[in-house]
């Protein structure tokens, strides 16, 4: 197993055996450990002392289902704290199959404006990966949909690609890291936290992996791994949410639009209401029926990455049946739709595609446009105006750069007080005033406001079952703590977080996940270790954040959510600071 360091300052690389101390780490556990150990917490995120770390999960690259995931980690230019942002792509599996457990990008290309690419391939003679640099200047400033085919043409069909778009070249806080999807499109993202700009700041535009001849991931105990894998497959294939033609495969994540709207928790027009009158027009059910009309047949969703059996990625089609955009996720649909008062799926899809073309995080982009609409730059509901704003970010105009700075930055620039962000990161699509539990997770996550920070795992496994009433603030905080730890474990394992839906209800699936990890690593973990291993990751991240100036005082929900009642339930966020503080004080 290999540990690769790439120094962008002098354009050198070192391929070294994986240090023993890291042999049981993967994914988020690996990236957060390396960032915490090697990155000065007070460094500038876009300076030479920050490091960008890629790590496939423990079971990534194996036949474990729904596990082609990679973690990207660094100090975030958006939050100023540690960041792990997760993506699904063949790029993840290819990195794992090259037996690379961590790829660390250091330094900064000296010549300002010069862009480089990395090409990693398997050196059969040396039995290890080899790294080459290539001049990537010809791809600067270009639409990623234009660039990806050129890279495939140059390097062949056995490659996968990660990179940054023009947003990362500009240094925007909302720049994501892009990966290819199975159709070779630039549509899969480690979107959050501005890590695309960390990549761009180093003078690195693309990392191309060639899977030809790669040896694959070694498995210490094949029988145990296979036992776990089968349990996981059974759970995913039988659960209503994850099974073929189940909720996610049929309607995608946007199935949550109508649900959250009925619950009064769908943030609308920059978090001024919890219900959007146009919700049913942009919901997952509308996407499914709209595609059926435009294509003349039912269309079920596809996999974002090899080996996924949930297959939740949708594609929205134009009236003539051609492809408009993939993928219109719940968060993107909400951010660029309800949050901006926009109820036109074609316009939302246009913005999703533009975000993919320019390398923008759709959540941060939509949350920022919502704030700008609040400021009166364009009115709520003006979808053409919103599309134009996304183009401004591509052009790098002064307005585009303000937008690219993210939700909190744009709010400051325009004097807006209703700014839905925690630790500088724009809030996703669940209203804390309507759903207090997610508010606790938004407030306390090491990542800033993050809807993927606290997935539900059975409390009896986390050791919090029956100890506190889950309806009290303290009980909610205890569950959030447990969920955040469990999520850190899943992000370390290499599985997509959506496996959590199935393994919550089907206990054998939970065992399967741990057996898969034990099979690969040779460890003796039990399900009781999920919380422990995850908590260690959280402690590492929390220590980095505190050293970076993000202590408990930053674990707070925006003030307006404590003072402005949210229709239709007319609730405020009333969880006391003392309860929020218990999430980490009792970790």
């Amino acid at each position, binding site marked *: 197993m290999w540990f690769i360091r790439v120094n962008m300052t002098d354009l050198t690389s070192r391929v070294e055996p994986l240090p023993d101390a890291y042999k049981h780490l993967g994914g988020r556990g690996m990236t957060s450990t390396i960032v915490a150990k090697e990155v000065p917490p007070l460094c500038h995120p876009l300076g030479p002392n920050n490091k960008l770390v890629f790590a496939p999960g423990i079971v990534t690259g194996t036949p474990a289902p729904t596990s082609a995931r990679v973690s990207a980690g660094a100090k975030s230019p958006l939050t100023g704290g540690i960041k792990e942002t997760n993506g699904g792509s063949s790029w993840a599996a290819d990195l794992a199959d090259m037996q690379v457990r961590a790829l660390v990008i250091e330094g900064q290309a000296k010549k300002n404006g010069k862009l480089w690419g990395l090409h990693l391939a398997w050196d059969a003679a040396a039995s290890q990966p080899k790294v080459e640099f290539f001049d990537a200047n010809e791809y600067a400033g270009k639409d990623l949909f234009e660039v990806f085919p050129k890279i495939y043409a140059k390097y062949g069909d056995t490659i996968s690609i990660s990179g940054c778009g023009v947003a990362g070249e500009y240094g925007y806080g909302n720049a994501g890291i892009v990966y290819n999807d199975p159709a070779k499109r630039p549509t899969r993202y480690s979107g959050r936290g501005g890590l695309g700009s960390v990549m761009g700041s180093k003078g690195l535009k693309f990392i191309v992996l060639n899977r030809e001849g790669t040896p694959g991931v070694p498995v210490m105990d094949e029988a145990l791994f296979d036992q776990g894998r089968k349990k996981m497959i059974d759970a995913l294939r*039988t*659960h*209503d*949410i994850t099974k073929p*033609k*189940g*909720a*996610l495969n*049929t*309607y995608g994540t946007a*199935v*949550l639009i*109508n*649900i*959250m709207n*009925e*619950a*009064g*928790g769908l943030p609308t027009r920059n978090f001024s209401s*919890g*219900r959007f009158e146009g919700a*049913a027009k942009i*919901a997952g*059910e*509308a996407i*499914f*029926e*709209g595609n059926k*009309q435009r294509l003349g047949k039912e269309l079920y969703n596809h996999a974002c990455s090899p080996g996924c059996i949930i297959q939740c990625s949708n594609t929205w089609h134009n009236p003539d049946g051609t492809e408009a955009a993939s993928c219109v996720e719940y968060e993107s649909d909400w951010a660029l739709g309800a949050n901006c008062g926009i109820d036109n799926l074609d316009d939302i899809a246009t913005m999703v595609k533009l975000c993919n073309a320019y390398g923008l995080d759709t959540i941060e982009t939509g949350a920022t446009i919502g704030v700008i609409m609040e400021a009166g730059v364009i009115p709520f509901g003006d979808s053409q105006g919103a599309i134009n704003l996304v183009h401004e970010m591509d052009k790098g105009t002064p307005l585009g750069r303000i937008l690219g700075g993210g939700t909190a930055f744009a709010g400051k620039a325009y004097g807006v007080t209703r700014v839905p962000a925690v630790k500088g990161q724009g809030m996703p699509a*669940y209203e804390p005033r*309507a*759903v*207090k*539990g*997610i*508010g606790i*997770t938004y407030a306390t996550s090491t990542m800033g406001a993050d*809807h993927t920070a*606290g*997935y*539900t795992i*059975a*409390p009896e496994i986390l050791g919090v079952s029956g100890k506190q009433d*889950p*309806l009290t603030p303290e009980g*909610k905080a205890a*569950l959030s703590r447990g*969920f955040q730890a469990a999520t850190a474990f899943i992000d370390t394992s290499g599985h997509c977080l959506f496996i*959590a*839906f199935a393994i*919550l*209800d*089907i*206990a*054998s699936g939970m065992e399967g996940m741990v057996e898969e990890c034990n099979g690969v690593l040779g460890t003796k973990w039990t399900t009781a270790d999920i919380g422990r291993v995850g908590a260690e990751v959280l402690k590492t991240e929390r220590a980095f954040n505190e050293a970076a100036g993000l202590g408990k005082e930053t674990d707070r929900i925006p003030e307006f959510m404590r003072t402005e009642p949210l229709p*239709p*339930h007319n*609730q405020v966020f009333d969880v006391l600071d003392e309860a929020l503080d218990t999430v980490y004080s009792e970790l």
Partner: protein
Amino acid sequence: MSEIVVDVWLYGGLSKYGGRAQQDSFANVEARLREGSTVGDLLAFLQMPTEERGITFINGQLSAMPGFQPDLGHILSDGDRAAFFHLNSMWPFQYRHGAAMIRELAEAMQTGKDQGLHHSYREQESKA
């Protein structure tokens, strides 16, 4: 006996119970019921078998989950909004933890062993 009007939303495949109000992916029905009618009466009015519905809301308050329906006797009031979801919908616990529930569901979950954590309570998924 006086009449009440309930604003009914039927999503996905349940839109077929919306009659003339059926649209492609939902139906919005104005249901006129006798005063004192319950959720069960509303289902009868719609001619919708209760086992076909999953997540259900009354005025934005969760009232039922798939296979867990303590709301059948809940009395509706004039102007209520009732929303019924198909069984291919979802609302993961982390995104509903602390959300509003009707009294009947809150009490039933409080006394249940898992306190409403799971996605579904239908027979075929009671494996946890």
